[in-house]
């Protein structure tokens, strides 16, 4: 029997390489942007440019996040549909969990890399604080140096993390259902039906999800949202709702993987 840790290492290593590549491209694109800026300013360097660069960097990072998210989701799906992994003597739930786990680890690794760059920017900015413009002052002072509530930050972070897991779980479920339906019935125009199903199932999932979340919030905080102290406990509730949904989806997915889902190649 293959150990879960072994599989984890294998899966994570591939994604680790992928993340490094994305990060490298991100940095290179950023380097090019800086270079273009310096060249078009007749090779003079002003500290004001630095603020502009930071904005560019944020923008590029945002794109990189999206790319990473999509690449990881794609890889996550491919593993479950590939003989390369399905042949391995490991139970379906271990395969599923280590697949999800290594995707999440890869994402954390990406956050970590971006965090390093951000810290570098932050420290440069802090040293030249007076020269910076108003926007960056607000960004740094508020976001980095005057965190109002550590607890809340941690909770928001967890929420971000969980929502990504949740969306990946939904994507997997959609993918599984599509594969299940096209396996059971002879479908003509498979591609068209595939995309229709994709939209339909995603829509249904979002609807169900949305109504539960808002339902719970209305029940718990029906007396109004704008009380600041309540935001924190609201985040906590969201965390529980998210976890509940992830657990349910994971169980359904593992059941489908075990009983019905076959490899594409």
């Amino acid at each position, binding site marked *: *029997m293959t150990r879960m840790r072994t599989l984890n290492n294998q899966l994570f290593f591939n994604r680790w390489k992928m993340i490094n590549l994305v990060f490298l491209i991100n940095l290179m694109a950023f380097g090019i942007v800086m270079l273009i800026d310096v060249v078009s300013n007749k090779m003079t360097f002003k500290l004001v440019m630095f603020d502009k660069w930071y904005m560019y960097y944020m923008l590029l990072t945002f794109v990189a996040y999206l790319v990473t998210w999509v690449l990881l989701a794609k890889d996550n799906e491919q593993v479950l549909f*590939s*003989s390369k992994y399905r042949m391995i003597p490991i139970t379906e739930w271990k395969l599923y969990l280590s697949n999800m786990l290594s995707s999440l680890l890869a994402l954390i690794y990406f956050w970590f890399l971006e965090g390093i760059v951000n810290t570098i920017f932050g420290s440069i900015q802090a040293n030249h604080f007076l020269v910076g413009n108003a926007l960056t002052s607000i960004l740094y002072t508020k976001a980095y140096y005057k965190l109002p509530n550590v607890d809340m930050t941690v909770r928001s972070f967890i929420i971000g993390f969980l929502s990504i897991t949740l969306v990946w779980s939904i994507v997997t479920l959609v993918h599984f259902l599509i594969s299940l339906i096209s396996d059971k019935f002879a479908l003509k125009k498979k591609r068209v039906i595939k995309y229709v199903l994709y939209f339909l199932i995603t829509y249904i999932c979002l609807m169900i999800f949305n109504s539960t979340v808002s339902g719970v919030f209305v029940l718990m905080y029906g007396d109004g949202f704008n009380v600041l102290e309540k935001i924190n406990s609201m985040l906590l509730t969201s965390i529980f709702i998210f976890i509940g949904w992830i657990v349910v989806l994971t169980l359904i997915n593992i059941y489908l993987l075990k009983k*019905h889902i076959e490899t594409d190649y």
Partner: protein
Amino acid sequence: MSNVLKIEELNYKKGGKKILEDVNLKLDSGKIIGLLGENGAGKTTLMRIIAGVNSVSEGVITVNGNTKKILIKENVSLSDHLDGFKATNKISEIVHFYNAVYQDFSITKYEDIANFLGLDMTKKLAALSTGTRGKLVIALTLARSAKLYLLDEPLSGIDSISRKKIISSIIRWKDDDSTIIISDHYVTAIASLLDEVVIIKNQKIRDLIPVEQIQSDYHLGIEAYYEKVYLGEIQ
């Protein structure tokens, strides 16, 4: 002799179509069995069902006394066409993966086979010819020490020199108590290897027949027998 593989009442559908129907099969260990049938007859599907990669909706598969999927996967080495690997993967990376995830994978056995077949560890998957890729698949599959090896068309599209090498490596590295099922639609190349033959036709399996029985009862070679079965001249 014990049954290394037992298939009972297997039915399998995909996309609303029957692929396999009422499959029953018992294989003794230690033999080399040819799984013959036209392209699309369900040879690959049957192998993947046995290996636990495809799911069984109806029927029971028993490998070496095990019915649990995970234990079956431990006992079966299926030849994977390596489509799950990236084109940029080096052979060494693929070997490393196999070595990590299969506990019964022997790196020394792999190296012996790879040396015999002349595989170069530093080459990338995309750079391999069909023949070399076929050799890699065989080396990876045989380097596990399984009870049952499933070789899915190991010789298809492969030149005659590589074919001979692959056949030699199968003879050389098969343990006496392990069993090999080889599927092919080009029979002659593997004819001299086979102890027994299973033919898939019209979603059904014809009984297992020893090659010597084909020769002594029908006075036919495997190829001729197979053709006659397909043409309906032998029931």
